């Protein structure tokens, strides 16, 4: 008998990426408009109206879900832009919208009662109280948990709520309590919650000099890499800083989350969906991660008892990772 395994939710920053996700076995894709209503507002990324319609048709005609992320916080005087994004999503017939802003959740609930609501990771619900609150007030049906909880904590949330729980399975780590990080705002005045990008590209400088490369964010030195050292994204959290006379990754090493090893446990505690980070990545990344996780989930569904992580899966994922290392992140952290 096939066991029930979590759904696989994959990123789509472009139409080719969406098709790659669908073709390689995603159960659902998540995407966003080409503006600051979503947390991956990068130059040239995301969907215009035409690509959006084509993408939704492509996925839904193959019976895969489309989740639209409208997960930044409405900025003063511009609430109408966010409302329009929600109206557009409802009109396009997406399977759910992923929201973070409480005002927007209330709007979506009142205006489009039939529209399925997911709480974004940017909404930063880390406890079952928070999850049950958004269910009671806005009818939220699924919540994406921030990447700061241990597996045991995730389980506690699931035991105490009827809201579906989605967790991150693979991708670059945003280590702070998502939706509550001030580092990017501190350095640039702009952050994921406000403009839809952490450490926006216009503030980033890569400086090459013989034997090394330096990264600066709005003038602040983030890191220096020797020529054979793996590089990471230019975010403050992944920089090397001098603290007490020592230079090291004071906040977090540039690593990627990878939960393959604990996939059986994730399925056992009743996680409804696992999510892949990376709408900013290319279609080939989406294809590679999707087919690897699909293979792992299928294997798990087929034979839970004998599930073991194939070396080929691990090496495929390790290659794609930031900083070339993978970790279980907070899921297995001894402290909390």
């Amino acid at each position: 008998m096939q066991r029930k395994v979590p759904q696989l939710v994959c990123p789509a920053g472009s139409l080719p990426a969406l098709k790659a996700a669908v073709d390689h076995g995603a159960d659902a894709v998540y995407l966003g408009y080409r503006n600051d209503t979503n947390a991956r507002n990068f130059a040239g990324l995301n969907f215009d109206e035409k690509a959006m319609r084509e993408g939704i048709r492509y996925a839904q005609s193959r019976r895969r879900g489309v989740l639209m992320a409208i997960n930044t916080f409405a900025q003063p005087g511009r609430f109408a832009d966010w409302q329009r994004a929600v109206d557009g999503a409802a009109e396009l017939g997406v399977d759910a919208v992923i929201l973070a802003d409480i005002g927007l959740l209330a709007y979506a609930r009142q205006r489009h009662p039939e529209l399925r609501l997911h709480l974004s990771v940017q909404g930063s619900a880390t406890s079952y109280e928070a999850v049950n609150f958004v269910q009671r007030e806005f009818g939220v049906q699924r919540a994406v948990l921030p990447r700061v909880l241990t597996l045991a904590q995730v389980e506690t949330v699931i035991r105490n709520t009827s809201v579906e729980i989605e967790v991150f399975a693979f991708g670059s780590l945003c280590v702070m309590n998502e939706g509550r990080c001030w580092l990017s705002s501190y350095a640039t005045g702009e952050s994921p919650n406000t403009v839809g990008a952490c450490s926006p590209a216009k503030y980033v400088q890569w400086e090459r000099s013989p034997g090394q490369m330096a990264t600066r964010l709005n003038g602040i030195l983030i890191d220096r890499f020797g020529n054979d050292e793996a590089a990471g994204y230019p975010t403050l959290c992944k920089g090397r800083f001098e603290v007490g006379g020592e230079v090291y990754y004071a906040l977090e090493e540039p690593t990627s989350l990878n939960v393959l090893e604990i996939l059986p446990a994730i399925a056992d505690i009743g996680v409804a969906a696992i999510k892949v980070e990376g709408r900013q990545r290319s279609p080939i990344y989406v294809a590679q991660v999707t087919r690897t996780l699909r293979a792992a989930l299928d294997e798990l569904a087929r034979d839970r008892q004998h599930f073991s992580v194939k070396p080929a899966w691990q090496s495929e994922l390790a290659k794609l990772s930031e900083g070339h290392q993978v970790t279980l992140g907070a899921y297995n952290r001894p402290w909390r």
Partner: protein
Amino acid sequence: MNQTFTIPRFRLPGLVAALGVHLPQWPHSLALASALNLAALAGLLPKESLAQMEGRSFLVEVLDAGGQACFACRGGRFRPLLTVPAKPDLSFRANLSAFLQLLARQEDPDTLFFNRELSIVGDTELGLLVKNMLDAIDWPRLPFPGRQA
């Protein structure tokens, strides 16, 4: 999986690179600019992205082959530049195999970048725009090697 052909990671020997720098740079630039123009003409490049590239200069340097291509975007079209500007707005540097892997969509630019196989110097936002623009091209599906079916 259903990939029929993979470009291996390789590096051309130094001798080839030494030869390469003595070859005229113009043909590379011309070929690259024409390819981009073809894509632009076919409506594969979004207008707003093109508008943001107006007036900017780009340098593509193939390290192991020693070739350089420099071009600029003017009037919505890409034109080769005969002389390399002292400070192009954006420079991409990589070995030939990395560029081929990128073009065949066999490797993700971020992956190559993390692994230090691709270097991007200059206006980072412009770099992101170019990368995302190339990623978003929905090439017609043809059963030719190196592409996912």
